[in-house]
């Protein structure tokens, strides 16, 4: 069965909502949850996730809130932390990974920590048995892919197009998927621009999809109540899960 990973920005509108939504998603077909850590300068993200980051910080999100949410959520849903490197670096990588292990958080998704820079921390990731999710981009050569995926754990994050999250861009990924699969048996999930309309096509040849902006668009919808937001997110999750497995 193809897997569904859901990204949500933590702390918008507040951490109580994030916790409720995370648990509800876990019961609606989401296999793994990316808890997004809001950052002031999210350069890999498009306008939707950027706005959610900004609003969450305006509402007073602090790094400690991530730990609070994770404590409630991680025992029930496989949880990963998605954030820009500075936030993790400021917390201290040793301290962070120890905390992650204690909370049963399975891995980190750090869009601005490429393979070369991550090498300094690979011992720490291994020591606490927390995965540093490997990114592959459509611009990567087969030689570089071989390098990057050599030690991949949990899953490989294949970026669906050259760009930022939540764009409507399309690229044919079949060749790159074949390259990845020739070097690694770790499952490959496709992320960026995956929504109800594109999920089936983006999942082709992959082992799963990662959906972010489509959920965050619902979070940002001012016309919906908390309950309605959760309902719409879980409906979307079930529908995507079904579509990728049709």
């Amino acid at each position: 069965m193809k897997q569904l990973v859901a990204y949500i920005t933590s702390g918008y509108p507040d951490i109580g909502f994030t916790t409720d939504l995370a648990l509800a998603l876990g019961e609606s077909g989401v296999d793994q949850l990316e808890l997004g850590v809001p950052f002031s300068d999210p350069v890999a993200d498009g306008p939707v996730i950027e706005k959610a980051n900004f609003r969450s910080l305006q509402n007073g999100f602090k790094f400690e809130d991530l730990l609070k949410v994770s404590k409630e959520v991680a025992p029930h849903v496989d949880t990963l932390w998605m954030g820009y490197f500075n936030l993790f670096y400021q917390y201290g990588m040793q301290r962070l990974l120890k905390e992650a292990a204690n909370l049963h958080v399975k891995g980190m998704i750090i869009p601005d920590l490429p393979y070369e820079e991550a090498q300094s921390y690979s011992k720490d990731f291994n020591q606490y048995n927390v995965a540093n999710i490997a990114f592959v981009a459509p611009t990567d050569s087969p030689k570089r892919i071989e390098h990057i995926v050599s030690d991949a754990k949990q899953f490989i994050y294949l970026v669906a197009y050259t760009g930022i999250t939540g764009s409507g861009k399309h690229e044919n990924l079949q060749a790159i998927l074949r390259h990845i699969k020739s070097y690694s048996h770790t499952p490959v999930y496709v992320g960026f621009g995956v929504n109800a309309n594109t999920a089936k096509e983006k999942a082709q040849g992959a082992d799963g999809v990662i959906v972010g902006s489509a959920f965050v668009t619902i979070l940002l919808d001012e016309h919906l109540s908390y309950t309605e937001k959760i309902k719409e997110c879980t409906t979307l999750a079930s529908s995507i899960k079904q579509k990728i497995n049709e």
Partner: protein
Amino acid sequence: MYIPSPSTFDPDTNGHFGIFGGRYVPETLMPALLELHDEYEKIRFSRDFWSEVDYYLKDYVGRPSPLYFAANISKELKARIYLKREDLNHTGAHKVNNVIAQGLMAKRLGKKKIIAETGAGQHGVATATICALLGLECEIFMGAKDVARQELNVFRMKLLGATVHAVESGSCTLKDAMNDAIRHWVTHARDTFYIIGTVAGPHPYPMMVRDFQAIIGWEARAQILEKENRLPDTVIACIGGGSNAIGMFQHFLDDKEVTCIGIEAGGLGVETEQHGASLLKGRPGVLHGQMSYLLQDPDGQILEAHSISAGLDYPGIGPEHAFHKENRSVAYDNITDSEALDAFVWLSQKEGIIPAFESAHAIAYLKKIDNIEGKLIIVNLSGRGDKDMIQAKEILHFN
């Protein structure tokens, strides 16, 4: 002819100056950066490439820029003060030195689309100029606040044929312009060349831009030896990202008798939260592709900087400066908005030279040096003040 030389302070192959620098970017950009690194290795010491740069620097920019003995302020301060006249360059600042070389690299790589971020607008104007010259498409990202306070430069860029994007996110200044430039670059990684304006960003930019700007120090060293037959006691430059400073310091760093001093933006005072003094008040962190000193809150969220000069209004600094701070190979201090403004008027009225607000910070420091009497000093006058006229007119009133 200027050709860079290997430096004592060159980074490692992945661009690290000690813990600083590196390449903290989305994977999509890594192949482009590795390609740029390889390309730069090929041309770094190539006579062929540098003769092409040299041609434009001489005949188009007007280099070498003079080293001018500022007799009137020297007399007042009882010192010997020289100004390195980068303000006389075509487009009005040191920025053009870097942009010519990067523009020629883009051409070699076969990339016809150019993007750049800009704070004060000097780098945007320089980039738009070179794109016009070399027949490249040009898009400039500029914070909406800077678009408003530097409207003349915005008009210049448009006149030169560039598209200017006013960036409305965050603090609407240089930091946010750089975020959007990176987003655009990630989206067009295959065919777009990003001309970064300072010694910041992911490797190889900090090293590359330093090499491109080091012509300033290379010329200044020869000029001062010719005029004074000795090296200066002190060399002063202002710092936003830090390219004019590193360019000036580069050829004096190995001389123990020369003190290099970088001047950060003190804004409303470093005891307030309204300044741009990343080295003094920040701590190491990662932003815009590099590890360096950053103004940030305890969690690591980036804070807004403040300076009267748009070019210094940035919460980070080039990674090599972070290294020099910790290595104590350069001294750093700061100058407030109002001290810079006094120096802006002082230099205008004493020497008939109107400095850019940025450069006025370096000039202002002359009045803060202890025991300046008898000293031989070079100040890098990184840009001219024409772009600041509208803003200055709002603040200053003459009878």
